[in-house]
């Protein structure tokens, strides 16, 4: 769909099931593209399949989880594209951490408590860089700690001697140890305080500017994601319901669920406004959905929602022409949403004002009409 030259990862039609008498279909046909140097944010509440998707992208699913469909292609900076699903054994081990690394949720607890940091760095280098001798390994580990703002003298220390934020920095240093092209971060700052969280985010952004890796950033905290990512995917019940430039979606969500999530965050600085969350509970992922998975919780539901499953369409009122170009110069992708409100065939009048990006339309009066896209 877009130019392959700046793509680093493409996953198409990913499906993951957790095996059981009635399998849980945690990821249902998710397609994503990650461009070189960009931060792709994935948002959604717990159980929406976002972590499972991350594990699928790194081929780390363990039974009972099983990928039941889809392809994952990695485009290295040099060399031919790699089909991740073809990798096995040593080839897969060689690929992980070298090309794609991951910072886990509760990474604070992912360090081995009874082993010093230098031993843990050694493990990485012995497995992936056997040519490095002891002195070189030590030097590189020191560099990495220094890079994430930790005194290299700490290298002989143990995890319990570090604060939560420092442990998180060590995890990030480890993820970057082999200079991967893609780093997947699953809730990297969730267990941390706002101030420490801010420091870690600043650190990630600085390192990304220096080293140029791409990031898939997964969190339930949409307000944070709007700030750190270039593009945003919102997941609900194992599916992508909206895909949008992060800079714009905060003020003009297209999907009712995104709208609800945004409304769940009180604005600290602006005027006080009415606060509602998204009433109801997410659906049971063991079930097949008739129609839209969000239908029971949706305040904008109408007749087709109960019977027809929505697919990703270009969002009404947000063709590429009407959205402002991204300030960073990274090409903005089309704004897509899986909602019948945006389907001109089912809803000729177009979506209600709040989902149409009314504020934007007012700025660009006459240049764009709702529902005028393919």
């Amino acid at each position, binding site marked *: 769909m877009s130019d392959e030259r700046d793509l680093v990862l493409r996953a198409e039609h990913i499906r993951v099931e957790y095996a059981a008498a009635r399998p849980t279909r945690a990821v249902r046909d998710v397609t994503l593209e990650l461009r070189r140097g960009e931060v792709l944010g994935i948002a959604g509440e717990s159980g929406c399949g976002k972590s499972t998707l991350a594990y699928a992208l790194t081929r780390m699913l363990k039974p009972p989880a099983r990928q039941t469909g889809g392809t994952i292609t990695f485009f290295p900076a040099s060399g031919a594209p790699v089909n991740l699903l073809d990798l096995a054994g040593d080839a897969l081990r060689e690929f992980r951490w070298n090309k794609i690394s991951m910072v886990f949720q509760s990474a604070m607890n992912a360090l081995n408590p009874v082993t010093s940091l230098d031993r843990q760095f050694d493990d990485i280098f012995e497995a992936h860089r056997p040519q490095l001798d002891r002195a070189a390994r030590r030097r590189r580990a020191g560099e990495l700690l220094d890079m994430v*703002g930790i005194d290299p003298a700490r290298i002989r220390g143990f995890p319990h001697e570090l604060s939560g934020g420092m442990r998180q920095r060590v995890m990030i240093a480890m993820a970057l140890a082999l200079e991967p092209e893609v780093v997947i971060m699953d809730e990297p700052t969730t267990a941390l305080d*706002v101030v420490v969280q801010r420091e870690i985010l600043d650190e990630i952004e600085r390192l990304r500017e220096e080293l140029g890796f791409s990031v898939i950033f997964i969190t339930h905290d949409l307000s944070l994601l709007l700030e750190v990512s270039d593009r945003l995917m919102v997941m609900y019940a194992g599916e992508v319901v909206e895909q949008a430039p992060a800079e714009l979606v905060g003020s003009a969500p297209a999907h009712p669920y995104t709208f609800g999530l945004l*409304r769940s965050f009180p604005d600290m600085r602006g005027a006080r406004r009415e606060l*509602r969350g998204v009433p109801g*509970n997410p659906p049971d992922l063991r079930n097949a959905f008739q129609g839209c998975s969000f239908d029971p919780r949706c305040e904008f539901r109408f007749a087709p929602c109960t019977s027809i499953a929505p697919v990703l369409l270009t969002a009404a009122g947000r063709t590429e022409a009407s959205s402002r170009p991204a300030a960073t110069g990274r090409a903005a992708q089309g704004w897509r949403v899986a909602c019948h409100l945006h389907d001109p065939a089912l809803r000729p009048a177009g979506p209600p004002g709040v989902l149409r990006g009314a504020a934007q339309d007012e700025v660009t009066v006459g240049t764009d009409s709702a529902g005028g896209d393919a």
Partner: protein
Amino acid sequence: MSVLEVANLTVAFGQRGGARLTAVDDLSFSLRAGQTLALVGESGSGKSTVVRAAAQLLKPSSGQIRLNGKPAGRRGRALRSYRHQVQVIFQDPFASLNPMHTVRHHLARPLLLRSGQQQRGAALDQAVYDLLQSVNLTPPQEVADKHPHELSGGQRQRVAIARALATDPDVLLADEPVSMLDVSIRLEILNLLDRLKQDRNLAMLYVTHDLATARYFSSEIMVMYRGVVVERGPSDEVILNPTHPYTQILASAAPDPAASRQALADARRRRQAARAARTAEAREATLDQGCRFRSRCPRAMPACADTPPSVETGPDHHALCWLYESQAGAASPAQSATGGG
């Protein structure tokens, strides 16, 4: 009028082979009927210790607690009565409900104890259903017979709230009541607490690390740093015009989805420059003398080596900081941190 008054509360813990750790240092506050006071701070600042001491779940090193004007009962029947009046909602609804018991059991027990075993049979069932109804768990007859594992996190927290209401308390201490819950349901729980507070004229302490919800759901905010309240005042004042450097850092650290990319990048560079100016060692240091925040403070000065004064920086708005000392000296000398009780 104030329902619960806590005066000069100090809680210190012994540490193996070291000095005592003062988790809460000379803290005073009062809760008024129908109002929420928010207690904000990072983890380890002593927020939960304040809750536990106020609920008399731990014994403070010093300090007085008065409930409805009378000294709080400390043991026996008087303590039981105090606990009926002052209820706690804990952070983790997965841990605070017994997995072996039904929702009915969780709610019936406090009702039985409260009524001295008088409320029984159909009347007890009805009281359980009324409680479930009041926290919007419907249909109550069905929910009552479920076990905790059959409920979502939000539903469990509603059960925990219903249980807290079972003794018809005057004071509710909510310790991070939504931080374990999904973002999409946090607001529902907070809105529920807010409505219950109004309907039942509860005095509420809302403990949180989230400045934004503190602003929305409380009339007054106290910001705590390492056991000490460094700033307090009307919530909009504290959040929109923070005066203590720590509150300023907290407020600026919160994500701001409305900011432009350029503004974000500029702010990031400013923070990085400021951080580089201080060494990592200094940030980690723990100080017992003087201002506890000075090792992290971007505006630290020599005076900070002495314990800072509480200065009125606005109407009912106090900050514990040397920065405002000169203005205060002229305007209102020796303002006490306790405020009007």
